[in-house]
């Protein structure tokens, strides 16, 4: 059996490994458009703060890992797919035939269409290449403007501070990480950051960026909608991502925001599957189909897609739970599932503003469907277990309504 996996992010890599585990004789080819060995975007913040070197970002540390598993790695971009003839065409023109194909091409950063967004000292923070650029320019004492206080913005925030830069964050929304936190948590996070010396402009927008006049001390001028312009050495744009689907144009693989898949992570073409940030997969919580763009989902997809590719759709994907954990200068926040609550649901909330502690549980009847938290890390994984297992909490529901912090006991009691 000939398997081709396009994309060497976590999703593609797990898929290759899973296929190998299930089928010792399969021919497996992993194609990646990047020149580096398979690496993890998630490790970029730690590379930036110099906790690890570039090799520390690699998804697998043993350089022989793929060859020892008999996985052929090709460093070339895929330009097109011919599903009727079962081959992929690489940028250099090579055509490679497959019997089963997995598309795990991930996502890319997108920048807002404003003047100056392509200037030299304006970067996204999505690839290792971006990270190298940022590392060379975000030096101690430099002024950095970070566009976007979403999840990616927040996750690199600490790394930037550790590099000793003067940081200003500009966020369009009215709070930080709006897609993972409610007003209370987002507001607390903001005041936490401000207490650590970060300047945060919410409900603010960068209108354009231009090279500064020779009289200015900083090379860039970042113009804002409502406030005076900011001088900067470096602008980092973390305003959003989109799935890598451009190369599918002209193929008959169906896509929307991402590639459309069914509960086996199979596309509209029978022998083509998709996984990770490129796939519009099933969300466990509301059973809707969309791109979650998180690592655990990418991995889960990769694994399940691989099983289905080898074992003929034997493994149904019941949906992934959207979940995040974020460490912002020591303040750890999490969100899981339907943290924003559901109609007709119930909630149990504890808030200790002074100590930046927050716990918000959301229930549907006696099942947990989501949480958001600040300052809670111990045994936090059981939240996934409880949501995923649709565990009926019974009498513990009432106890959690009184004291949500007894989550672990509730979990154990229901096991």
């Amino acid at each position, binding site marked *: 059996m000939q398997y081709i996996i396009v994309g060497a992010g976590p999703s593609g890599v797990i898929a290759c490994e899973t296929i190998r585990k299930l089928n010792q004789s399969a021919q497996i080819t992993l194609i990646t458009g990047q020149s580096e060995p398979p690496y993890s975007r998630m490790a970029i913040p730690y590379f930036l703060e110099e906790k690890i070197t570039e090799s520390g970002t690699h998804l697998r540390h043993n350089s022989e890992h793929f060859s020892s598993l008999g996985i052929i790695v090709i460093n070339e971009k895929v330009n097109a797919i011919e599903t009727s003839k079962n081959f992929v065409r690489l940028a250099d023109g090579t055509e490679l035939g497959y019997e089963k194909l997995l598309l795990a091409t991930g996502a890319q950063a997108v920048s807002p269409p404003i003047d100056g967004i392509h200037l030299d000292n304006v970067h996204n923070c999505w690839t290792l290449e971006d990270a190298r650029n940022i590392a060379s320019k975000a030096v101690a004492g430099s002024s950095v403007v970070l566009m976007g206080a979403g999840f990616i913005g927040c996750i690199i925030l600490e790394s930037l501070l550790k590099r000793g830069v003067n940081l200003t964050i500009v966020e369009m929304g009215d709070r930080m990480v709006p897609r993972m936190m409610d007003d209370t948590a987002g507001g607390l996070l903001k005041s936490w950051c401000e207490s650590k010396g970060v300047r945060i402009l919410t409900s603010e927008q960068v209108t354009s960026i231009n090279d500064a006049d020779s009289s200015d001390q900083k090379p860039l001028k970042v113009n804002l909608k409502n406030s005076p312009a900011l001088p900067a050495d470096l602008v980092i744009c973390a305003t959003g991502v989109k799935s890598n689907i451009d190369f599918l144009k002209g193929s008959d693989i169906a896509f929307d925001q991402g590639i459309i898949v069914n509960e086996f992570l199979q596309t509209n073409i029978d022998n083509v599957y998709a996984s990770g940030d490129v796939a519009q997969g099933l969300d466990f919580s509301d059973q809707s189909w969309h791109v979650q763009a998180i690592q*655990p989902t990418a991995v889960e997809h990769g694994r399940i897609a691989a*099983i289905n590719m080898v074992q003929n759709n034997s493994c149904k994907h019941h949906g992934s739970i959207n979940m995040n954990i974020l460490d912002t200068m020591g303040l750890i926040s999490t969100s899981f599932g339907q943290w924003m609550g559901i109609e007709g649901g119930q909630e149990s909330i504890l808030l200790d503003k002074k100590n930046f502690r927050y716990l918000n549980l959301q229930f549907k009847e006696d099942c947990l469907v989501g949480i958001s938290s600040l300052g809670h*890390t111990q045994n936090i994984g059981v939240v996934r277990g409880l949501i995923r297992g649709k565990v009926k909490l019974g009498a513990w529901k009432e106890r959690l309504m009184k004291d949500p912090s007894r989550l672990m006991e509730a979990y154990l009691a229901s096991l």
Partner: protein
Amino acid sequence: MEKSLVINPDNCTGCLQCEMACSYENEGVFNPSKSRIKVFTFHQEGRFVPYTCTQCADAWCQQACPVDAISLNLVTGAKEVNESSCVGCKVCTISCPFGTINYNQSSGKVIKCDLCGGDPKCASACPTQAISYVDADQTGLDKMRKWATETDHASTNTPANA
């Protein structure tokens, strides 16, 4: 024969000797808050439940790790955190549906049970045999493993060459 930790909560008195043994082995101090095994008290029910990683076959933590910092010890079957690779992203801590891998703020890394390399100190410290280390096939821990797979319906815990 691979061995595993077997926990019998009925025997537990809540003394925390296991937590001390664990933290002493791993941290060099007696510090239950850093123990890889935790005893939970059910006051109303009069019950104490020691709880730690069951080293599940398709380890969620291991798969979620972006930098390959969790690996299988082929001798003990334990999933071990490689301190030098772990970047402290904590994704494993939200991925493990059992909540048995935890972030350690002071080291900036995660900690989990590694079976002490085959001589788990919690088991030897336990005065009531609430924790024992025995041949894997006689454990009741399969209940939990089963649950682990049920949450996903996707286990690759099948023999290779399928």
